[in-house]
């Protein structure tokens, strides 16, 4: 067991950081704001985001800027974690860096497909540039797939990208690339977990990633069934080949269901069934986030294992930032407060 004082301190630190979350009351008031400026002013004056936004002029702030500040804050919090980590475990805690690298590359590819690659620069997370394994500003200069290949040649992502080099004039197959990247991401993580931790800690950490995989797979299947009426052969290729609480047999049953509704019922037979049954089949994406939120919250509350706490904390923080972004977008598009509230995760009960 790799339990040490540093690990206890980190767990405590994470719990303390989590204590500054937005409350349901905060959300209730936020969704009723009339403009992004009012949201910024509220966050500045009424929440723990105050010091973060102190210098910001809430009358001038833009959505992208606010989003950027929030993401940077999450990243800074994550960097604080490293003070408590022993060198032996450091490799594991860098999982978020890999996740962010993948997300940035995928975003860049999406913009390439849409011929809007010049926009990448504006949303580029400058705070991350020093930590990425490749030149992040280089991504802003990418004009085509060859540029991208050239930039990422020294990285672990090159081999995957090379396989999906599109022939002239065709779009890049982003779906396949995303799946391959995710496979790479999770196998690397599990590999590191096995190397770094042992016993119960290793199992718990694997489970918290495993849950994300399980839920992501179930959601993918039901979505594919619902929108494309996809068959098992097609779906199988788009799933992550890892199994945790959902057995391969159960997953097959969901895939082989006749339609989305049947798939939903099959999903309700799995480990996550009790949680699924609480929700309506209509909004599977939101509910899988909801389930994720509750699992992570529960894990964070009860765990005394630092890596589990960190993983859950980062997930919950991510959900909070997404919630704030949903609120801002909702307000921008003039949605009613009750409509915006429906988009938020972990707020309703």
């Amino acid at each position, binding site marked *: 067991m790799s339990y040490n004082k540093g690990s206890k301190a980190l767990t405590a630190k994470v719990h303390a950081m989590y204590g500054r979350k937005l409350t349901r009351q905060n959300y209730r008031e936020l969704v009723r704001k009339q403009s992004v400026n009012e949201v910024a002013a509220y966050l500045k004056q009424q929440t723990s985001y105050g010091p973060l936004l102190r210098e910001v002029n809430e009358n001038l702030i833009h959505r992208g*800027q606010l989003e*950027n500040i929030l993401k940077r804050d999450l990243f800074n919090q994550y960097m604080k974690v490293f003070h408590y980590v022993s060198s032996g475990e450091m490799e594991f805690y860098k999982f978020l860096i890999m996740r962010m690298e993948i997300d940035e590359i995928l975003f860049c590819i999406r913009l390439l497909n849409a011929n809007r690659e010049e926009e990448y*620069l504006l949303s580029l997370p400058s705070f991350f*540039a020093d930590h990425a394994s490749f030149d992040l500003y280089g991504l802003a200069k990418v004009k085509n797939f060859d540029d991208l290949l050239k930039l990422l040649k020294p990285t672990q992502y090159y081999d995957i990208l090379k396989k999906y080099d599109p022939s002239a004039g065709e779009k890049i197959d982003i779906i396949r690339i995303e799946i391959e990247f995710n496979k790479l991401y999770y196998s690397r993580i599990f590999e590191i977990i096995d190397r770094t931790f042992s016993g119960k800690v290793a199992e718990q950490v694997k489970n918290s990633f495993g849950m994300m995989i399980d839920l992501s797979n179930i959601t993918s299947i039901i979505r594919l069934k619902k929108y494309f009426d996809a068959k098992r052969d097609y779906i199988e290729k788009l799933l992550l080949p890892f199994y945790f609480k959902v057995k391969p047999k159960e997953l097959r049953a969901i895939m082989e269901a006749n339609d989305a509704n049947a798939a939903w019922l099959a999903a309700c037979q799995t480990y996550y069934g009790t949680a699924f049954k609480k929700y309506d089949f209509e909004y599977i994406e939101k509910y899988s986030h909801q389930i994720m939120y509750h699992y992570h919250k529960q894990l964070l509350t009860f765990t005394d294992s630092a890596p589990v706490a960190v993983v859950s904390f980062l997930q919950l923080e991510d959900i909070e930032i997404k919630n704030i972004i949903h609120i801002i977008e909702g307000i921008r598009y003039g949605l009613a407060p009750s409509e915006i509230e429906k988009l938020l995760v972990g707020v309703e009960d």
Partner: protein
Amino acid sequence: MAIAKMKLVNIVGRMKDFDEVVRKCCLHGDFHPEQSSAALGDVEEFAPIQDFNPYSRQLQKTIDIAVHSDIPLGYSEFDSLKLSDAELEDYVGKIESQINDLNGKVRTLSQEIARLEQGIIQLSHIKSLKLSLDDIFSCKFFYFRFGRLPRDSYPKLEVCDEKDSVFFFPLEEDKEYLWGFYVTLKSESEKIDQLFTSLYFERLKILEEAHGTPEEAISAIKEKLNAKTEELKAAKEAVDKFWEENRGQFLKVYSKLKYLSDSFDLRRYASKCGDSFYIFGWVTEENAEKFQQQFQNLPRVDCVIESTEEAGDIKPPTHLINNKLTKPFEMMTEMYGLPAYNEVDPTAFMTITYMLFFGIMFGDLGQGLLIAIIGAILKAKNLLKQLSGIFIRVGLSSAVFGFLYNSIFGYEDILPFTILPVHDNKNVNLVLFSAVGLGIFTIIICMIINMINAVKQKRVDKLLFDANGVAGFVFFASVITAAVFTLLFNKNVLTLPFIICLIILPLLLIYLKEPLTHLIEHKKKIIEGSKGEFFITAFFELFEALLSFLSNTISFMRIGAYILSHGGMMFAIFAIANMLHGTGSVIFLIFGNVFVIALEGLIVGIQGIRLHFYEMFSRFYEGSGKPYKPAKVEYNSSK
């Protein structure tokens, strides 16, 4: 006698003297006006006077001016002020326009100063620029923009497509932003402005006054700022000077307007009939003559002073007069209700009993003195005016009983003797019975006061047949006597004549109160409504009266219980203190004493009020009086 005697005042006169009369009514602040229509009732010829108050607008203006200029409003002698109504209006208008001009200058200058200060703050962010702003802004081909760029955006400039056509020069940095300017060709300005907007650049507006380098501009603007500050100072001084010169006259005008306006408001109490007016109200007996004399030089005005009986149904207002000892307790009687004019003011009685009960329940020489000292300090600081007086009184009472109990901050062995050993375990029953005894005595006094009230109000029924009248008194006293004889002297006095005459007969009288009253008053109908209903209601009323005798008497046992609980709490605190050692023990004793004073002091205080309101006042006190509110001009209020 603690309720001031009142006299009825009727004033009749010609309308031409009316203004003079209402003003005189206001002058000394002792005339309590009544709605004259209430007295005139069905005399149709009289109509209420409802005129528009011509002074209210001007008065409101003076108040607005004073509030805005922070001039405390107050009375200023205005007899010497010889201004007609029109002149008053002119004066107010003049003052208003003058002060508005002066204040307008102050406001404009303050805004200008704020603008310059903001400009300096902004310029100070680009202070390190050694170029002349004039040169920069007069460039023919180059385009400049000052402002701040989020730190996150800065590195992006290095990689953007436009990187060769724009330069950003940071001049100052803070945690979130880089302050500086960007420069580009005028022909590119639109595109570059767009780029910077998307990088969340916030533009900084350079003041028109800024010339030369920012450093030079700052010092030039500072000079201007200083000049403006001087101007502002002068403008403020002008305001002060204005008030120095005009304050005296202004307050005189205000006082006069206030007087005219408030006395004008008194008109709504009056009625008129043709060319005559009628107004009536109350003055205290001692001021009546003085009040009447005011009108002697108005030959056509009659001011008639009459006794309260002449007022018929209109009850005189209650004006409590209490001495220094009892004054603070007015608060508690008023909480229950103001005594009616022909009712005994229970304040004096309550002062004695409340102090007595509090002292008995919370007897401690040290703690009592402490409460008294706290009260004295509060009084000296003019805080909690009435409550502080009560603190002093109950504190001293508590100290006296503490002396009798030999209890000083819970220590019971400091004095060499104990006059009343109430905390002795052997005396528990004696303490409780004595408390009940005190209760019986108090209830009897309450019944006596009720009978006095009955006499004052000339109500035979209340005097003779009430549960708190003679009948109730005889019954209660007899039962108590019988009980005392039986319990203490082991002697049965309950003979048949005793039972019939002193117990059953009084009960019967109470039961038949209503018909007996009607009989005495020679009313035609002896029982109103159905007989069955009467007998049942009367039975329940009697039952309730009997029950309240029992419950009210037993309720006084709480006085004894609190003596014991006080001893018990101090005992507990000493026990815990003894378990601790040294300073810990001392600190706990101090804490314990503070705790007991705060908690028990509060509980005992509340119990005292409870005993008075439920057990005592309900027996004799109606509290249906209306307060004495003489018409006077409130010069200090801003309403």
